Each structure stands twice: as C-alpha cells, then as structure tokens.
C-alpha cells in the first residue's frame, strides 16, 4: 500500500461538552476508495468536515503528502485539491445549475467579467459525464432532490481534486444514477484520485470500497481490506457489543387500550398537496411498546407530530383512553397525558441557552407553581428525581445543557417528557445520534416506563432496533401501514422487503 495522500492524525473534536472524535488516526490512499462505516453520531461526518477544512480539530492535526497542514477553510482545502460532497445539500436554490457549479470559482474573461460561455460549456461536459440532462441555465430549486445531489457531485468533480470526500452521496439517487456515480468513481481512482465514501447502505458501500474503516462513538475501532470482510462483520464492529445486552428481552403486561388512532391522514408540511400519513389506524395499550419502522419519507415523524398536536390532521380520529383527543394543541395534549420526544433534539428538544434543570422542568413548569411564582423547592425536587430516574450524567441541575454528551442530552429530553406524567409516551427516533451505552439506557428506560403502565409508541429507521425493541412492530411505507408483526416473527430480510412496500424505493438497491 502506498503512503497516504491525506491523513488525520490523533484528531479529537469536542462540541460543547460532547466528544465527536477521540484521537482518530485515518489515512486516505491515492487510487483507492476508502469506505467509512459507523452508526449515526459515530463521528463520520465530523471527521470528513475536518479533512475538508470545514471544522478545525480540537487537538491533533491533518497531514497532506506526509506534511502537517492547517486547513483553515473549505476554500483553503479545495485549493489543496480536497473536495467534499456534502451530506446536506449546500446549493443555492435561487441560482442556476451553472452558477452553483462555479460559485466562488467563477471563470473570468480577460476583462475580469464572468465568462458565462466557458462556464456553460464546462457545466454541459460534467453533466454529460454524469449522464444527467438537466438544463445548465435552469434553477437548482426546480430540480428534483436526486438531480440536485448530482449537481453537488458535479461541483466536486469540476474541482479535479486529488482527494474526493463523499458523505452520503446516494441518499436521493435512483439505482441507475448510483450506477453512473460508481462508474465515475472508478474512473477517478484509476486516474489516481483518493476517494472517501460514506453511506448508510452498507452493501452499496462495501461494493465500491477498496478499504474499510469503522468508527464507533468517535473512536476508530477497525480497519480492513474490503475483500476480506462482510456486512455482518461491519455491523458487529459498528454496534460493538452483543446484541442481547443491547436489546434486553421483556415480557409485557398489557392493560387497556390507551391510544387509538382511526383513519388518520396528515398533509406533508413541506408538500401540502401530498399526504405524509394516509388513512392510518393503530392502537397502543397501556404497558405496551409499539415500534413504527419505515424508510425516509414513510411518514413516521408526521404521524407522531400529529399525535402530539403539532401538526393538524386532515382527517381521522385520535382517542386517549377511549375519549376523543381531537382539536387541542400541544399544551392541552401534554395536560391530557400525550407527550412527544422529538427526533431532532438540538432543533426541537432542547433550549441551549438554559440549564439542565430548566430544560427538564420546562414542560411541567405549571405543576410547580405556588401562587404567582414557580416554587423552587418543588422544581428542584422534581428535577433531582428526573436526573436519577433517567440516569443523566451531569454535574448538577445548573450545568449548561451543552456540557452534556449527545446521549445524556437525549435523556434530558426524555426526562422532560416524563416529568409531565404522561399516559402515552411518543418517541421519534429516540436512539438517533447517541452512543451505544446511552442507547441501551434509553431502551431500558422505555421498558421501565412500559412496566409502570405507560403506552409507548416510538419510531425507528434502524432495522435491528425495529426487530428487537417493540412488543409489536408496525411497518410504514408512504404513509400507510404495510405490515404488523409481533417480536420475533420477522427476519431482517423480510423487514426490508415489507418496508419497500412492494414499490421501488427512493434510494439505491
């Protein structure tokens, strides 16, 4: 193996109090595709951002051609031949395809003006290479998501980089588009370009990879040649523990039907004329954990947000303990006993400017009021109880929320929901972006609440979780229920087949 072009050396990255990376050594070799694996929150994107100059390491450094280099910005890295295709699209929807491709890298004429003709010709050429027929003068905002992703890829290709980092480049591509991308990647490696490839589709990534690297909880845990390993090995390294301890067995004690949903339809908040949830019916009994599994866009989040009162359903009925729950907003539903732990805890779950204790007590603040004011002893007592109950590791109620790790932040969001004394607990992707230890804690917490008679409804996009955690699993595809299974009834392969809903899915095969 030749010497690496680009290398992260002992890189550590801390956000607030959270360790995203802990002393990672990561080499990238010319002419080879290095596939990087890891769960959500394992630190893949952070590592790529550091290699591309978007983020600076807290400690450690980056080496280019064996010499230490400080990549001050993505522009700085790009000048040194490092290009990145972002997981999140970083295009300006109000500009044309050509303008986006040449943004901040405009081709100039002799007079210093932008050479539109040259730019358009280059755009045409690179789009041809990707077998994409989009109009170079069309607005990026008018393209569908997959095409936008191709524009993003084209932009990286135009840089003629020596190192190409691709972070989830295929999430919105169709199978033929993925084929084309792979062909282009092989052309690049043949020409000596080093490629880093990250994808949630393990088989797809293993297919294109030469080398395999696995990250777990910010630590590099394994490296291997692609030909020598299989998906099973990769998953073992990613999860890093015996599945039995992560997914404890439980025997539910079921009570009355707590939450009943009949023919619920919810409009997609982004595309109002499309139904995100389409005539769905389900029921959750007290003491039961029900999982909802579905791919991206299956309507999981919209379902929970409608139940929590954030989205107004188009039609249908929601019952709590047999009594209708129609109409009222979030506040009233929390008072009635339905509370949501949202998917994106940074965006929807936590108030970053407030302390751990203030975050915990926020949803149940009204219950600590004495006269006009919040009773401090009452609030403190409740917060202390919550910190122990949901096992938050913190220096105390006054600690800044940002000083907590991802898993502990998630526990605070769950603790906040539990302090409202709910009858029905809704959790949207509760294990997303938390480390394995916290994941086990969170599942244990859900089980404990179910034992106390709560009805628990949670969503997941993780097949292992879907198969092992819930007492009953509902599989969602395109807003509709396509299957319902008891635990142990289903294999991973069957789940994949069912969740495709028999229709071609958005992503690659």
């Amino acid at each position: 193996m030749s010497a690496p072009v680009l290398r992260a050396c002992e890189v550590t990255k801390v956000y607030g109090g959270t360790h995203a990376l802990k002393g990672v050594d990561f080499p990238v070799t010319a002419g080879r595709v290095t596939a990087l694996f890891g769960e959500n929150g394992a630190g893949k994107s952070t590592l790529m951002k550091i290699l591309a100059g978007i983020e600076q390491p807290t400690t450690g450094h980056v080496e280019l051609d064996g010499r230490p280099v400080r990549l001050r910005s993505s522009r700085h890295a790009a000048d040194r031949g490092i290009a990145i295709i972002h997981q999140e699209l970083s295009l300006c929807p109000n500009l044309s395809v050509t303008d986006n491709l040449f943004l901040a890298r405009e081709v100039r004429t002799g007079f210093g003006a932008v050479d539109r003709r040259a730019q358009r010709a280059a755009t045409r050429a690179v789009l041809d290479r990707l077998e994409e027929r989009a109009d170079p003068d069309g607005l990026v905002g008018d393209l569908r998501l997959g095409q936008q992703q191709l524009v993003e890829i084209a932009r990286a290709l135009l840089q003629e980089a020596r190192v190409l980092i691709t972070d989830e480049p295929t999430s919105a591509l169709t199978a033929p588009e993925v084929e084309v991308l792979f062909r282009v990647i092989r052309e690049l490696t043949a020409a000596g370009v080093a490629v880093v490839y990250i994808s949630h589709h393990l088989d797809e990534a293993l297919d294109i990879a030469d080398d395999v690297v696995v990250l777990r909880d910010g630590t590099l845990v394994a490296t291997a040649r692609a030909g020598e390993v299989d998906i099973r090995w990769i998953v073992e390294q990613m999860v890093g523990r015996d599945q039995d301890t992560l997914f404890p067995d439980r025997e539910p004690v079921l009570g009355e039907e707590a939450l009943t949903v009949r023919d619920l339809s919810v409009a997609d908040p982004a595309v109002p004329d499309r139904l995100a949830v389409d005539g769905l019916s389900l029921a959750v009994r007290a003491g039961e954990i029900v999982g909802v599994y579905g791919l991206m866009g299956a309507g999981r989040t919209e379902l929970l947000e409608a139940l929590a009162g954030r989205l107004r359903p188009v039609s249908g009925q929601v019952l709590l303990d047999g009594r209708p729950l129609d109409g009222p907003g979030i506040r009233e539903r929390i008072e009635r006993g339905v509370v949501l732990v949202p998917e994106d805890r940074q965006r929807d779950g936590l108030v970053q400017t407030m302390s751990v204790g203030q975050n915990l007590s926020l949803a149940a603040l009204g219950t600590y009021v004495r006269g006009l004011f919040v009773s401090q002893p009452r609030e403190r007592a409740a917060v202390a109880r919550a910190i122990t109950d949901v096992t938050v590791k913190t220096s105390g109620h006054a600690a800044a929320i940002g000083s907590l790790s991802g898993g502990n932040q998630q526990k605070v969001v769950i603790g906040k929901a539990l302090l409202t004394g709910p009858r029905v607990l809704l959790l949207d992707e509760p294990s997303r972006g938390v480390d394995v230890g916290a994941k086990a804690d969170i599942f244990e917490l859900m089980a404990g609440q179910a034992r106390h008679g709560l009805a628990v409804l949670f969503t997941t996009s993780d097949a292992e979780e879907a198969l092992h955690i819930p007492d009953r699993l509902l599989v969602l595809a395109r807003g509709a229920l396509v299957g319902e299974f008891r635990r142990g009834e289903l294999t991973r392969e069957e789940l994949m087949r069912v969740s495709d809903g028999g229709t071609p899915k958005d992503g690659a095969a």
Partner: protein
Amino acid sequence: MTATTKTPAAVPAERSAARARRLSLLNVAFELRAFIALAVLIVIFGLLSDSFLTVPNLITMTKHVAINAVIALGMLLVILKGGIDLSVGSIVGLSGVVAGELLGGLHVGGVIAYPPVWVVIVLCVTVGMAVGAVNGLLVTRFNVAPFIATLGMLYVARGAAMLISDGATYPNLAGHSALGNTGFGLLGSGRPLGLPTSIWIMIALAVLATLLLAKSPFGRWLYATGGNERAADLSGVPIRRVKTIVYVISGACAAIAGLIIASELTSAAPQAGETYELNAIAAVVIGGAALSGGRGTVRGTLVGAFVIGFLADGLVILGVSTFWQILIKGAVIILAVMLDQGQQRFKRRGAAAAAVAATKHHD
C-alpha cells in the same frame, strides 16, 4: 483478516485542565464586564470633575437614566424572546400627546370633561399596550418579522401622535385645581422620600421584571421561547401568548417613559422620543443580552442603561464637544458587543477544554 483495534492516545492532561481553569476565570471577568465598565466610567469622571461624584449629581444622572432604563426593561423582554421593538420611541411621543390631549379636556357631546390624572395615566399606558398588542398580533398571527412589524408601527404611532396633536406641542400640562386635574407634574418633579418619582418607577419596574423573569413560569417560558422556539412549542409553552405579552409590556413601559417626560417638561411634543428605541436597544445589548434571544438579565440591562446615561452626562459636565459625545457612545456600544462575542467564544472554548480534561482524567 488485517483488522486492528485502537484506543484514544493520552495527551498531557494537566495542560488542558489548567487551560480550562484559566478560561473560566476570564469568563467571570467577562460576566462582570458591564459593571467593570460602569466602575471605570465613575472613577474617570470622578477624577476629572469635582461635581460628578456628589449625591445630587448622582441622583440627577440616575433620574436621566431612569427614562431609558424603563424603556430598556420592556425592550429586554422583547429581545429575550428573540424579537426587537423599534416602535417604543414613537410610543413615548404618542403617550405624551395622549396625556396632553386628555389633560386639555375631552369633548363629549358638547361638554368638556376633564379626567383626573390617574385616569389619564391609565389611559396612556393602555394606549402603549394597545400599540404593543398590534405589534404582537402582527408578529404572531400574520408572521411579520418583528423588525418590520415594529418598524411599521414606529411610523404609525408617530403619525398618530402628529395627527392627534396636529404637529403642535401641548404646553402647560400642570392642570387646574378648579378642574380637578392637577398633579400630573408630580410624576416628573415629585420627590417621594427624597428621590425623584422616575427613579422609584424604575426601581419598581426593575423589581417586577426580575420577579417576572426569575420566579414566574412566564419568565421561564420567555427564556425558552427565545432560546429555542420549536423546543418550547413542543414542551407545551404557549409561545404565541408569550410573544404577544412581551410586546404589550414593552409598549406599556414606553408609555410610562413618555408620561415621565411629559410630566418633567409639563408639556408634550409629538416628536418626543425619537431614536429612543436605539438607546434602549443599546442598553440591553451592553447589558449582555443576545439579540438572537434567550440570554439577558434585568441587572445587566440596568447597568447598560447606567453606562449610557452616566457617559452622556459625564461628558456634558466635562464640556466635551457634542460630536465627540456621539462618537464615544458608538464606540462604547461596539466595544460592549465585541466583549460579549469574546465571552461567548471563551465559554465554548472553556467547555471544550473542560471536556477534554475530563476524559483525560477518566483514562
């Protein structure tokens, strides 16, 4: 299989720990920066002028501070929510004009009625609250950006003040004992227990605001809404109500300031209070509040108002040219905000250093 397993390497731990300690010390200094600035101002002016550090002068300066502080307290609530209220200066003018109109008598069906002073005060504050309620309504129901909504109301309220007064000043608001409407002047020139009324008003409002922010559920909701509106919403915080109420309170505070000014001058001009909104925003910002919302205190805002007020009066006592006065005020505002940015950066770095140090100790 060529698989290998790695653990994070150990780096000197003490260095990180010391760095974390140093950064947290700096953080404390930053936390107190507004107080330090105020202390520096008082010392400098005290050294340069004999008449600066006298009790009567301190009382007079505090009286001048009070007007801006009262407006700034309302502004603080709006800024905590992540909004801004540009209409307060115009509300100051409108409130004075309404007081002038009412003290001059209400024409009701051919008869002129002279409402007593307390009614005038209540009505003026109500007018301020009404303008605030319109601001709140525009922001919460019609999704107009706070900057735009209150900019619009800046003109609407000023225009209303001009229309009511026909551009003229209401002179002599002292009232007549025969009409039973005397006493308006006390608001501006009365001195209960030796301190001007306006200082008592400032103290009372500051105590109320502190209780509201620190003790009441509303205060917590406000901090949460400003810190993360979506999270607050999902936690059942009535964010629309919170947002509307802060504009109403801000309008009430501005109206009170307008009454104090009209009472001090015993006359009311429709153009009173122009650019006062900027002074109030400056006080809140110097006091360490974040314009993005969720961060700020009553204490800081008061100190900010004192910094601006003492600076202005001190420069007058020293006889510094007006042009320099303007320039120095601007420099102080910029410096305060730069220090605030510095503090935020130090806080983040301190947290990162502390976290690195903590893991090193665990190893």
